[in-house]
């Protein structure tokens, strides 16, 4: 099987699977509560995973790293806590046309509730963010700028650092959706100067059900918890309660302990390879694949046309075979790609299309797989372009 759907979720290395088995077989206990050794081991493993993530994204403090279910939950928490507390009627939230639904709908809901306005940064013809438009759409009314670091469709990596600078000049906070960047490149939240950064474990070799919300300490520490109960609590009276310090204040109930440990193992795996190496390898795959895909007659590739500016996500359409028919045919040949709107309906409308096929690559993909893929595409075209009448 050739797995080309890594933007949806990645496969897992043996070391990640082993870390889960090892926890359940040898260290299985709840965290932060027991005063026996097993629970201490579980707690250590869980908190070490936090340290690993801290290093991975170059956060200043371990308290800035919160475990969530994934990117979607991280962004929802921001909308329901920071958003609800800081966004008032007439304020503006700025996102872009290339956002994933998870970075659109939470803000829509917030905007509707408080009477704020949700605005969209335009894209240029090559699919990259229009920074002039971003600049124009920012004003002192702008309170939140939330943009994806890397697109899950266009193969674009956005200049988050520049956006953060603009946002901060207008007194807004900067949120980056790192779901498609954290798995594929070195992340430095301090250098990018983001206030929040969200990503998912399952897209970066880790388990399902675990993700990260990074928050700059000063901002995060003023934010109310998103959920209540369990170990996030300090003192409970009958009518009120006080809470633990960061990061535990945001981790209500028994967390996904095995998930965090598995994510830690995934971080280890990626760190062993080196994130610059991961990025370089994927870049070499793209420069191999993109020209070949573009050479297929009748193909339209969305996003930048040169592989230098294109990440490992390649969305395209054939004029003669509908995206879904193509995906089904590829599946018959054991090649797994995605077809559809990729949870980016506003982007699809912006591009005036209903769906695309998407190939998304990761470290275990190879040039041979790409060759085979190109070969099969040719055969599929033939298959569908016979005259059937």
């Amino acid at each position, binding site marked *: 099987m050739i797995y080309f759907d890594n933007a949806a979720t990645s496969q897992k290395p043996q070391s990640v699977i082993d870390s889960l088995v090892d926890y359940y077989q040898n260290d299985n206990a709840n965290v932060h509560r027991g005063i026996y050794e097993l629970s201490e081991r579980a707690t250590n493993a869980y908190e070490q995973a936090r340290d690993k993530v801290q290093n991975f994204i170059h956060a200043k403090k371990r308290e800035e790293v919160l475990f969530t279910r994934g990117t979607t939950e991280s962004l929802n928490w921001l909308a329901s806590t920071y958003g609800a507390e800081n966004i008032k009627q007439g304020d503006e939230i700025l996102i872009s046309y290339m956002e994933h639904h998870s970075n659109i709908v939470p803000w829509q809901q917030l905007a509707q509730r408080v009477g704020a306005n949700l605005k969209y940064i335009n894209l240029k013809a090559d699919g990259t963010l229009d920074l002039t438009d971003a600049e124009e759409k920012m004003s002192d009314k702008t309170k939140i700028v939330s943009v994806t670091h890397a697109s899950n469709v266009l193969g674009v990596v956005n200049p988050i650092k520049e956006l953060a600078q603009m946002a901060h000049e207008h007194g807004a906070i900067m949120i980056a959706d790192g779901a498609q960047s954290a798995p594929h490149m070195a992340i430095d939240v301090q250098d990018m100067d983001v206030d929040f950064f969200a990503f998912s474990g399952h897209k970066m070799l880790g388990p399902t059900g675990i993700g990260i919300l990074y928050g700059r300490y000063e901002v995060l520490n003023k934010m109310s918890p998103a959920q209540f109960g369990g170990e996030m609590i300090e003192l409970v009276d009958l009518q009120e309660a006080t809470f633990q310090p960061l990061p535990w204040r945001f981790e209500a109930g028994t967390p996904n302990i095995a998930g965090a440990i598995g994510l830690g193992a995934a971080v280890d795996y990626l760190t062993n390879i080196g994130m610059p190496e991961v990025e370089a390898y994927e870049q070499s795959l793209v420069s191999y694949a993109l020209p070949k895909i573009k050479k297929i007659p009748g193909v339209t590739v969305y996003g930048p046309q040169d592989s230098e500016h294109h990440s490992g996500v390649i969305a395209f359409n054939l004029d003669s075979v*509908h*995206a*879904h*028919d193509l995906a*089904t*045919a590829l599946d*018959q*040949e054991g090649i797994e790609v995605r*077809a*559809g*709107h990729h949870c980016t*309906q506003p982007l*699809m409308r912006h591009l005036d*299309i*209903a*769906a695309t096929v998407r190939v998304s690559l990761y470290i275990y993909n190879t040039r041979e797989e790409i060759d085979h893929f190109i070969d099969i595409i040719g*055969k*599929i075209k033939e*298959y*569908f372009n*016979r*005259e*059937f*009448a």
Partner: protein
Amino acid sequence: MSLHNLDNLYRQTIMAYAQHPHNYKPMLETESYHIRKYNPNCGDIIDLAFNMNDDKVTNIHFYGDGCAISKASASMMTDLVSGKNRSQITQLVEQFSKMARGEDGDFKSLGEAQILSGVTKFPTRVKCATLAWHALDELLAIEK
């Protein structure tokens, strides 16, 4: 190559309809029955419209971006129900749903559309085949 597996789905009749769909034309906005249906799984959109004359469906046509399966299915469906009345059509819709769920039965009344039963071997594509039929079903539920 195992593309011949695909022959179960993309039968010659289906592909012929997909390439040359029947009753495929833009909405006039004057039809008395019109619905836009959306397949949230994939993003496909279908517009379906018709008039009712003496309890009979007339001038039925569809339009929209869709895969071969959904276009062929809409084509066959519009051919099949044209000129039929509500109760006849309701029965046909039920028959088609049953077939698409992979249940046993005698689906002769579906005519050419019987060929779409191959979709049951491709569970992720069943919705493509049923989209137009669901649209029709919703329109018929409206009493005018």
